[in-house]
């Protein structure tokens, strides 16, 4: 059992490092979702299923979705400004 907890902790640490080391936000969102999955596994391994459930809702679904929506909105605004330059300044 200790071995499983140790492996799960190591995986969480490694994937967390990958999340920090990824630069493009689109790619980071996918790795962040994977990080949420690893945290869920860790929480069930240390026998905290309720914490795992809330982590699953927040980390694997909600945060990546909001990150992706924000990126998409920013891209669209940037492209709109590039197409109609100077429209916002008036």
């Amino acid at each position, binding site marked *: *059992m200790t071995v499983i907890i140790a492996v799960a902790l190591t995986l969480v640490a490694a994937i967390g490092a990958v999340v920090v080391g990824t630069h493009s936000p689109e790619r980071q969102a*996918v*790795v962040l979702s*994977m990080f949420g999955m690893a945290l869920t*596994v860790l929480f069930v391994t240390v026998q905290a*299923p309720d914490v795992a459930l809330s982590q699953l809702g927040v980390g*694997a*679904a909600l945060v990546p979705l909001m990150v*992706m929506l924000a990126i998409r909105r920013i891209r669209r605004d940037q492209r709109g400004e590039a197409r109609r330059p100077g429209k916002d300044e008036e």
Partner: protein
Amino acid sequence: MNAWLIGALALLAGAFPPAALLTARGEPADRLIGLEIGSVVAVLFLLLLIQGLGQPSYLIVPLVTVLVSFAGTLVFTRLLAPVADES
């Protein structure tokens, strides 16, 4: 350590790191494949772990994991698709 926990450990140590490595490289859509394999592996790991622990009430966690990862990956495929320029 009973046989179920050993199987769970084999899944966690043998199949989760390759999936995590797939999410760590390449284009965003390529990384999505790693996420899919990773969530399948996580669900099967949880099934074996819960059997090994003898705590069937924890089974709600893999059930929710399946549903949430399905919805989450579909959202990713919608939002990673290129935006149509003419609109």
